[in-house]
């Protein structure tokens, strides 16, 4: 198969590597065999005990910190809770009326032509 394909390229070959390359490449490789293998970040992390320990401590600290924040937030007043609901009742009735927003009259909304609302209201009437 390769020969066939090569024939499509006029049966020509790629140039051979220079003679001196063999000695140079093998010498460099043999020298590298004697060295400690160069490892990537994850392999270094995996093979080194102190790094593995440090990684475990960091992960544990992150998990504990997350759990602590979760528990601490559970006992504190929720940030989303309405301020007015927790506030003491006001003495001024007029001010109280402004703060207590009136409920939207759904019947009026339906009469105003909001069909979705009417449908909603009709459904509720039928249900009741």
């Amino acid at each position: 198969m390769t020969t066939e394909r090569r024939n499509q390229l006029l049966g020509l070959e790629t140039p051979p590597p220079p003679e001196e390359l063999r000695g140079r490449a093998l010498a460099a490789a043999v020298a590298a065999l004697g060295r400690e293998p160069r490892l990537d970040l994850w392999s270094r992390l995996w093979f080194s005990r102190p790094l593995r320990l440090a990684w475990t401590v960091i992960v544990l600290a992150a998990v504990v910190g997350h759990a602590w924040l979760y528990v601490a937030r559970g006992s504190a007043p929720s940030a989303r809770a309405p301020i007015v609901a927790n506030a003491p009742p006001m003495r001024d009735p007029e001010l109280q009326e402004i703060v207590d927003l009136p409920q939207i009259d759904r019947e009026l909304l339906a009469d105003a032509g909001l069909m979705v609302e009417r449908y909603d209201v009709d459904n509720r009437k039928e249900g009741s």
Partner: protein
Amino acid sequence: MQKERTRPIHGSEAEFGGLSRESWCELFAQLAEGSVQALERLYAVASRRLYGLALWHTGSPEDAGDVVQEVFVRVAEQRRLLEQVRDPRSWLLTVAFRLSVDVIRRRRRRPTESLDAHELLVAPECEPERALDADRASRLLASLPEAQRDAIYLRHFTDCTFKEIGTITGVPTFTAASRYRLGLRRLRRLVGGSS
């Protein structure tokens, strides 16, 4: 067991694509043990194809030589991981290809000579009279974009499938195939135009 592992690999050793996957894996297992003989055998089997790939990509014999040397250094340095390599042939080509890409990136920051100046193809030893053909073909190949030249090289000289070419060059299979076809089409057009 040790004796079994270090026995020489038979078959067409001089042919890069001629080794079976089992033979490649056996060779890589020997390399993983740090065998110098296995390194020599790897050089005999793979150096020409790796050099060719680097030469076609970089266009410089010096850079191609450096790439081959660096591939062998990587093999020695990463010997612990070699036994996990599932397709040693593609792995070697991928390492050589990436190193060649690095050479090109580095070179873009410094002035360089033209690719036309170097021969990418030579006449077979038995047909020295075809040197002119080789010279003309080299010039035509030099005028192709790098990606198309890589695809043609990997397909013709290392017998890679399009999927393997895609894996080596880091593109989808379809892209590898279309690069190859575009490259050949362009080459044919150039041959037609120059004759």
